[in-house]
């Protein structure tokens, strides 16, 4: 039988197997050798870095965790590095979540970055986790008029009115920058639609998003969005920028995204070869006379 014909009748489970191997082997290889590929940052990632870097020390940042463990493979490295840059710049971080599990992820990120590497930062003064609020866009509309009404207590149950970091916060415009890591609805797009548009330039926003939503968010960059981290590639670029700025040898937790770029490379190469093979089959079939 002709090669192309045989390829065409190939069981798709072989494709599944190839994909499994293309991802699994690099993970094992990197896990054992610990080596990663170098990253050069694209403008969208550099703008995220710059937006945070240009804020004066002590500025408040609203940090949104709009994702859940299902997408943390892509988004957690972004959240970790973003949190690290904010903490290193001595910004005051206010974490919120519109996804039920986002509050827990905020707590974990704070523990991993702030509590362990920036022990001088005090809860309630330099950072706070306001936890999850139900209500999707409703919450965004409330923060426009009364921030503390939307988040009356923090994740420990302390009233917002008693929290030092929120002392003179009235509306969301009291935060010069919103950093939002989002996986879908409600997320980055809704923040742009309901908050950034309504604040008319008073609040800037940078976003981290999954690969799926990146193309939808590009039309908002650079006007409504000051910077955008798209997918694990964006995370890896930004991670390398932050690592470079911080100097020294980064801890393994700050290399997560760059480690995940190796399976990406082989996965993508496999995809490209599959597309080529598919088209080879198609054109070979076209050349054969139809009977």
């Amino acid at each position, binding site marked *: 039988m002709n090669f192309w014909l045989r390829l065409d009748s190939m069981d*798709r489970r072989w*494709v*599944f197997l*190839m*994909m*499994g191997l293309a*991802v699994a082997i690099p993970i094992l290889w990197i896990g054992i050798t610990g080596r990663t*590929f*170098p990253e*050069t940052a*694209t*403008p*969208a990632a550099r703008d995220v870095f710059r937006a945070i870097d240009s804020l004066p020390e002590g500025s408040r940042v609203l940090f949104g965790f709009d994702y859940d*463990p*299902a*997408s943390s*493979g892509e988004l957690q490295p972004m959240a970790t590095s973003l949190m690290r840059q904010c903490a290193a710049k001595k910004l005051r971080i206010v974490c919120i979540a519109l996804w039920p*599990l986002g509050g*827990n992820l905020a707590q974990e990120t704070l523990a991993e970055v702030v509590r362990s590497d920036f022990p001088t930062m005090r809860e309630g003064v330099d950072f706070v986790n306001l936890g999850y609020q*139900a*209500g*999707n*866009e*409703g*919450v965004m*509309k*409330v923060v426009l*008029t009364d921030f503390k009404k939307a988040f009356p207590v923090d994740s*420990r*149950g*302390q009233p917002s009115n008693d929290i030092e970091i929120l002392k003179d916060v009235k509306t969301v415009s009291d935060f010069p920058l919103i950093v939002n890591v989002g996986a879908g609805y409600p997320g980055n797009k809704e923040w742009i639609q309901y908050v950034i548009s309504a604040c008319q330039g008073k609040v800037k926003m940078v976003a981290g998003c999954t690969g799926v939503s*990146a*193309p*939808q968010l*590009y*039309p908002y960059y650079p006007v409504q969005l000051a910077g955008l981290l798209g*997918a694990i*590639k964006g995370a890896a670029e930004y991670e390398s920028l932050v690592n470079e700025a911080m100097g020294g040898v980064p801890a393994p937790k700050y290399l997560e995204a760059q480690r995940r*770029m190796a399976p*990406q*490379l082989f*996965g*993508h*190469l*496999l*995809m*490209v070869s*599959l*597309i080529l*093979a*598919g*088209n080879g*089959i*198609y*054109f070979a079939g076209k050349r054969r006379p139809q009977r």
Partner: protein
Amino acid sequence: MILRRTIPIWIATLGGFVMLISAFGKPIEGMGESFAEVFNVIAAIAFVLGAGSLLKANLTKISRRDAGWGFAIVTLSTFAVTLIAGIFKVGVNPSRDFPLATFSGKQTTPESPFGWLYEYAMVPLTSTMFALLAFYVASAAFRAFRAKNLEAGLLLGTAFIVLLGRTFAGVILTGWLPEWASGLRLENLSVYVMQVFNTAGNRAIIVGIALGVAATSLRILLGVDRSWMGTGGDR
């Protein structure tokens, strides 16, 4: 008929117009926000209906000994265990700030049965289901991405550029291009595609969708389209 069709349609019309006007009228500006809360509460109450449907479907399956009735038992028992453990916060310590309030603790720590079920059953199951997409995406690329015409060719050509341009492969393949032709390097090309073609295409889609939503909403508000509305009969 009046109770079952006319009044609901008027409820929809009036509810919609009030919301529409509330976007412009200062005194009633916050009505949209209240609705989001109202909706969440109704949806939470409606879980009773969902649970009823789930129970009925699985109990019928078991009583009729349909194919796979054993799995219906698994569904029902995991459902019951999770629900009881979660609603009563079984094994959850109270919050450290309010130790006297019995239910002040969060139920999501893996120490409690509910948290354990979440951490070790739900997370691996749902995230692996999510990860299956990597396999399906490969099979779709192999089977469906064929340059049958110009349109399909453009689709797969772009996918090609983005796939290569967003990894180290792009650097290896086209990194040698001289500075004056750096625009043709795959990583730059992929950014160009995103900022120009993708922006234009997405804008057209977004504007179209906005018009579609506006027209659909108006069809509902003006009562032109009533097919979303059932008879509301007894079942």
